[in-house]
């Protein structure tokens, strides 16, 4: 899709205020309108124009604690991951871009398999998402970007519905990089995504055909369309909670990364903060759809 086509699309879809907001987002343009990962503002505006419909009208996202995200400088947002497909990531990115002043673009770390998939990998790169490799993480931190990680990984998003709101054990890579690069960690809890696509079974063989680790079977699969209706999410209402920044690097030296047990403890600490926010959010929630 040419950039002219994209421009025509977002030009008629976005309000002047939204255009102005998105224009304020800084990218490290290498001279042709793209950053080193392939992020491009026309694609970003187009994605914003599409996702805002889901954000405002379908999932009706509400959030608390956006002020906990630093206005500038490197920061790692660590969230639970749920709902079969990564809509939660898109909603967090959208929420930060919409509510922060000045707006920040959050760069989500996505799973490796996405890069091999035609269109999917391309789309992720163009809208600022980055394949999960330590070096990529380092480049982003060096550029003082805001990074979104799902330390529970693909296991977390593929959790079965019966295990909802019980995030997987957190991986430790983000803790190590937070200590090495002195980046604060903002714990993020997403309530509502678990119910959009309740995963009742993981169909590994079908997933492999599409280059994905598994195919998440949801109740929507049985609505008559099989795989076609499987990914139509229920309009559950999203509540996003941003916790206070955790600045472990102020108390632990860089050498802590050599201590696996301590790093594991810090990762577990972030997870417990996320779980705590999830529990509070669930108590406050009046219903799944409102």
């Amino acid at each position, binding site marked *: 899709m040419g950039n002219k086509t994209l421009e025509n699309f977002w030009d008629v879809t976005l309000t002047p205020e939204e255009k102005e907001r998105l224009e304020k987002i800084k990218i490290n343009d290498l001279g*042709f309108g*793209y950053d*080193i990962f392939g992020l491009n503002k026309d694609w970003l505006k187009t994605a914003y124009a599409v996702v805002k419909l889901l954000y405002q009208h379908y999932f009706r996202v509400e959030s608390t604690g956006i002020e906990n995200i630093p206005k500038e400088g490197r920061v790692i947002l660590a969230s639970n991951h749920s709902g079969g497909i990564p809509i939660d990531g898109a909603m967090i990115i959208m929420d930060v871009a919409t509510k922060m002043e000045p707006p920040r673009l959050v760069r989500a770390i996505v799973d*490796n398999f996405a890069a091999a998939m035609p269109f999917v990998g*391309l789309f992720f790169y163009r809208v600022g998402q980055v*394949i*999960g490799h330590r070096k990529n993480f380092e*480049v982003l931190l060096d550029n003082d970007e805001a990074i979104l990680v799902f330390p529970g990984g693909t296991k977390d998003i593929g959790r079965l519905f019966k295990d909802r709101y019980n995030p997987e054990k957190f991986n430790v890579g983000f803790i190590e990089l937070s200590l090495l690069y002195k980046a604060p960690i903002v714990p993020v809890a997403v309530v509502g995504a678990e119910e959009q696509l309740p995963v009742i079974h993981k169909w590994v063989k079908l997933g492999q055909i599409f280059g994905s680790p598994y195919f998440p079977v949801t109740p929507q699969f049985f609505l008559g369309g099989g795989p076609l209706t499987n990914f139509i999410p229920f309009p559950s209402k999203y509540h996003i909670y941003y916790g206070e920044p955790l600045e472990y690097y102020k108390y632990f030296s860089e050498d802590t990364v050599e201590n696996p047990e301590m790093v594991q403890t810090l990762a577990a600490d972030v997870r417990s903060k996320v779980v705590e926010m999830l529990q509070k959010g669930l108590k406050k929630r009046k219903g799944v759809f409102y």
Partner: protein
Amino acid sequence: MAISKTHNVLITGITSTLGRQLARLLYYDKRIGFILGVAIDDRPFYFDDFSPNRFHYMRVDLTKPRQVNNLFYSDIFKDMEIDTAIHMAFLNKPSDVGEKSHELNVVGTKMLIDKCIETGQVSKFIFKSSHLVYKIRPHNPVILDEEADLNFDKDAPQWIKNRVDADMICRAKMDNPKINVVVLRFSNIVGRNIHSLMNAYLSSKVAFSITGFDPMVNLIHPRDAIYAIQLAIHKNVKGVFNIVGRDTAPLHVFLELNKTKNRALPEPLQKIINDWQKKMGATDFDFKAGRELLKYAVLLDPAKAEKVLGYKPKHHVEFG
């Protein structure tokens, strides 16, 4: 890093576009004493303005051991005290496959570096390598440093394997105390008459991109490429260095700038169409060798070259 004094250089593949440009750059470089140029062709006219006091041309086939021996035992090699060898004799056309290509690119490289060490006269060996030696994978990081995995895939095209083998032959001599080996891994060198996969692709009558992919690509101007070689001659360095250009953008941007017609095709159809294109003379690009290059980014980390060599690209690639 200290700049060293006068060097006398041997350049193999001097009749290639880059070799010729390098020869001219070094000819006017006051820190270069004598240039011994070597290639398989007859002496070309474009060296006629070079003084015999500073330049000598020898016809040598690097696949022939006797001719290589004659080069190293020649009076001119000894008398002119050649101390630096720049190995650029490499068959780079994507169509250059088969025994001849292997003999020059791999066996020739081995013979040359071994001879340089054997004479004890050559203290630096500079090899022009390529970013194509790296393993290109979807989950590679956005920039590859010099320690990134190389493509040892047994199913890799011979064209790629030759590059990896030659690179490895040079790397294997890195610890030899008699010689400083410098391997320069260039990203896509793009310019008139340059034989590179990307140049062949951009010069196609119609370039077929793979549906659903548009990787980030870095292009390097030939003048920056020879500038990096010049730095490697003069700086007291050894090791592997990634050499990048100034221009980085998605592939489609460069196709547009070059005014190359671009049509997206699903991957399974690419090889059939590419074979047909090659038969018709509509492209020199070889899909088998360049398949991954059309799908995934291969951007090199320039940090080491910048820090140790002092290299920074200056020129934008010229299109059209």
